[in-house]
């Protein structure tokens, strides 16, 4: 670092939310700084005050209820910007021109009735006083900066004509419009696909380094900060509990919470036998100012002095590495074997056999009255053995969930067959299907949306029992529901609560309990942990694994996060635009991915370890996944493939078994060479 120019320095920031009956101490004395050209990561679970801290420093919170009670925010080492009023002229110029923010939802942040060019030009003209023509040129330059192809013609398009990833690029362009000195990306890539996420972050990194802008990445994803951040602040309960260079934090974490986080996330380069260690409990609700270390109730490595000595202060543990933890000899062993779990029994019997599955949705065509079919699935072949977990991965829109919904017969497939233990499900009528409903269950991505807000959680879990007459009489239902609650680790005393009174993890447990109620043999899990915090994610993954062993369940596990899939799956199928492109044993696939798409997907997943990250080869994906309505001829992947040949453009490659690896199938002609 030749030049150490401080862009922003926050000192001892405190923010409270003063509500009628209670006060929430959301930010409790946070200090941090960011230098020019530096990428700083802020990580922690949700509710730890990451976003509130950023919003407070710019005075973007509504007041009341929010109140900044203490602290200084020095911008470029000059005046404390907190001394400006929250709506003063000074802070508004600062916000638009010097400091810019990018939020999580790109689609809702853009105005749908204005072209994207006009929207970006607006802030350019406002803050830089350019005329129309100059502004247009500047906008095109910006679009080029964030790698939007063909910016001249894209200028006049509306937000709905762009994909989510493209919209996020536009947001970045808008944020960069006035050459800000500081850019804050608040969970900016969380809603995007892993491949798009990688592309966006690469773009951000490139833009920031090119323009010497300071960047704060606020995220819960440890992999992202490991790959991109120079320095990291770990937050917990509205405090920074550890800070330092990325390498130091990951290699030598000095706070029990940081270690807990690292232990709870699955890694792409893991040993298959590593068990996840969740952090039990939940972050504190911050309604009282805690007298001791806020992490103490969840800490497994607490010392007696943690209880008696009050809140620990940040102390230097190495060059620029600070931590607030009394325990100086923390156990950092990341690897604990899964040996404690019962062994899996995978039999050769195929519980589910999907053959040449086709699914099309009728849509209105371009011509008046014309109808075309949107072909989402184009011949999917899969089978699932009893007791095994098959991971199904791919970018969103590739048809993963459609496969699941076809198996559940929520959709009637347009072709092919689905055999459940030899019974053809596609031919059954709704009434005949009912007995099978008991055996095939579903766990949803959004634990809240899948629970009826009007019912108590006890009733929700008891519903399948009533529908299938699995327990007769109130007492029998009650007893069984209690059993199910205990099975998923919930207290039955909560059973009269409504779903909104639970935390995300508890809701997902209810979803699992409901799925287990009818004693199914096959459970389809559609992104069951992607909406959860990392520590809770580990709890749910462990729960799913232990139930599987206990009840000999088979899982079809749909997810976009390959490190999660790798952790839980026995075999993995990779899907692209309605076709399976590669299917193999979990280890085979990670050791020797054959299809270029699989390779690119794997390389897009960041590993929470900066040292590993540095040495990894990154395989970029060209462009974005096209919509199924514009499926390319031949191999669907060829326009994005770096090694596509003539054959790829002409014929559709079939799944072929690799000679040297039995059970490893891939649909790519390149592998024959």
């Amino acid at each position, binding site marked *: 670092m030749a030049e150490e120019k401080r862009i922003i320095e926050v000192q001892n920031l405190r923010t409270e939310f003063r509500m009628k009956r209670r006060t929430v101490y959301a930010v409790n004395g946070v200090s941090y700084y960011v230098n020019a050209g530096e990428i700083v990561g802020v990580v922690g679970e949700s509710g730890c005050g990451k976003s509130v801290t950023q919003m407070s420093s710019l005075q973007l919170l509504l007041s009341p209820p929010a109140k900044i009670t203490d602290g200084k925010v020095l911008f470029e080492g000059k005046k404390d910007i907190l001394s400006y009023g929250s709506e003063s002229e000074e802070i508004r110029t600062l916000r638009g021109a010097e400091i810019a923010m990018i939020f999580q939802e790109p689609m809702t942040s853009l105005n749908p009735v204005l072209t994207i060019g006009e929207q970006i030009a607006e802030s350019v003209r406002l803050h830089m006083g350019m005329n129309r023509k100059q502004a247009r040129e500047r906008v095109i330059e910006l679009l080029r900066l964030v790698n939007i192809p063909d910016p001249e013609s894209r200028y006049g398009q509306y937000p709905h004509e762009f994909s989510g990833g493209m919209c996020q690029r536009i947001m970045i362009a808008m944020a960069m419009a006035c050459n800000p000195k500081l850019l804050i990306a608040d969970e900016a890539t969380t809603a995007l696909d892993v491949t798009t996420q990688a592309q966006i972050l690469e773009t951000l990194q490139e833009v920031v380094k090119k323009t010497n802008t300071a960047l704060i990445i606020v995220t819960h994803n440890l992999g992202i900060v490991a790959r991109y951040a120079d320095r990291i602040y770990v937050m917990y309960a509205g405090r920074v509990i550890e800070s330092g260079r990325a390498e130091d934090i990951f290699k030598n974490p000095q706070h029990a919470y940081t270690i807990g986080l690292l232990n709870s996330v699955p890694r792409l380069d893991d040993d298959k036998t590593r068990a996840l260690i969740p952090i039990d409990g939940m972050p504190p609700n911050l309604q009282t100012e805690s007298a001791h270390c806020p992490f103490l109730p969840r800490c497994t490595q607490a010392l007696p002095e943690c209880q008696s000595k009050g809140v620990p202060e940040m102390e230097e543990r190495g060059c620029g590495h600070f931590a607030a933890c009394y325990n100086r000899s923390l156990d950092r062993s990341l690897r604990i074997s899964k040996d404690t779990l019962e062994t899996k029994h995978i039999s050769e019997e195929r519980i589910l056999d999907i053959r040449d599955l086709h699914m099309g949705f009728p849509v209105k065509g371009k011509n008046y009255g014309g109808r075309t079919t949107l072909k989402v699935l184009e011949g999917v072949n899969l089978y699932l053995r009893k007791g095994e977990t098959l991971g199904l991965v791919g970018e969103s829109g590739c048809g993963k969930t459609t496969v699941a919904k076809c198996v559940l017969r929520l959709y009637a497939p347009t072709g092919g067959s689905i055999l459940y233990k030899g019974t053809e499900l596609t031919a059954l009528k709704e009434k005949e299907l009912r007995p099978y409903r*008991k055996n095939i269950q579903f766990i949803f991505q959004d634990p809240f949306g899948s629970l009826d*807000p009007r019912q108590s959680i006890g009733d929700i879990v008891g519903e399948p029992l009533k529908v299938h007459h699995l327990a007769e009489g109130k007492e029998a239902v009650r007893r069984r529901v209690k059993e199910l609650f205990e099975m998923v680790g919930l207290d039955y005393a909560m059973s009269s609560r409504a779903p909104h009174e639970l935390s995300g993890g508890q809701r997902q447990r209810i979803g699992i309990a*409901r799925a287990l109620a009818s004693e199914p043999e096959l459970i389809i899990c559609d992104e069951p942990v992607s909406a959860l915090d990392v520590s809770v994610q580990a709890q749910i993954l462990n729960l799913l694994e232990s139930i599987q062993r206990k009840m000999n369940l088979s899982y079809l596990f749909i997810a976009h996060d390959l490190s999660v899939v790798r952790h839980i799956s026995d075999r993995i199928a990779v899907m692209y635009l309605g076709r399976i492109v590669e299917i193999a044993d979990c280890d085979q696939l990670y050791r020797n991915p054959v299809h270029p798409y699989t390779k690119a997907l794997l390389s897009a997943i960041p590993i929470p370890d900066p040292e590993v990250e540095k040495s990894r080869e990154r395989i970029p994906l060209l462009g974005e996944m096209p919509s199924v309505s514009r499926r390319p001829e031949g191999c669907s992947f060829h326009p994005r493939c770096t090694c596509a040949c003539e054959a790829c453009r002409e014929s559709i490659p079939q799944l072929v078994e690799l000679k040297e690896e039995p059970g490893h199938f891939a649909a790519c002609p390149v592998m024959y060479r």
Partner: protein
Amino acid sequence: MKDRLFWSAFFAKKAVIICFAVLCLFVLAAVFAPVLAPYSPTAISLAEKEMAPSLKHLFGTDSLGRDVLSRMLYGARISLSISLVSVLIGGFSGMILGTLAGYFGGVVDLVISRCADALISIPPIVLTIAIGTALGQSMLNIMIAVGISSIPGNIRMMRGKVLSVKERDFVTAARVIGEENRWIMLRHLIPNCISPLIISVAMSLGGAIMAEAALSFLGIGIQPPNPAWGTMVSDGMRFLETKPYLALIPGFAIMVVVLSFNIVGDALRDALDPRIRGNS
């Protein structure tokens, strides 16, 4: 336990307690009208016509010398029962038809929605008159006529809500469990879609009282000399300048009842919703 939560949420606000008490008072007055009324509501006494309120006639007398208080008490029986029953008919049918249309879609939706559209295109008062005439004169027929004219609006409201709620994951979850359509509609869709309907039904009570008055005015509704609030308002209108109390007293009663129903309806909606219930 659940019931206690419901009632404590229902009576969380003072206004609700007052309005609920007012409604109870009106209902009691209607039920005990024969005991409470000082005179016969139909007894004509031309010698005492158009008398201002006094101790003898608390609310005065009308143009035929009938005691307004007695007519108000007896009128409460007719007006309250007609308005309540008719909005319940309208609300219930609208709820069922709207849910069916929204949930099943396709032909079911087409038939129900087009019928509703056809009914909406006719002005409600004309529709009520047409149905009233077709069915003939009786209290039940008036209730049906007034009720039917409110069905199309309720269908649309319910259908729209069902269309959005049926796409939610918990409905999918119910289908995955293997629940029957009937069960899904009754247990999941209706409870989650009914809030706007409750509000709309509570608000249409006043309209129902006035619709009944319009029918009476046209000779299809309650016939003189039987008292009803709506008829009393329209009769009293002629004397608004000289004897304003003749229209104001029943008008005020209608206003109080409708206001109370609205507030009680709001409270009912909130108390039924566990999310709002938890916050209050």
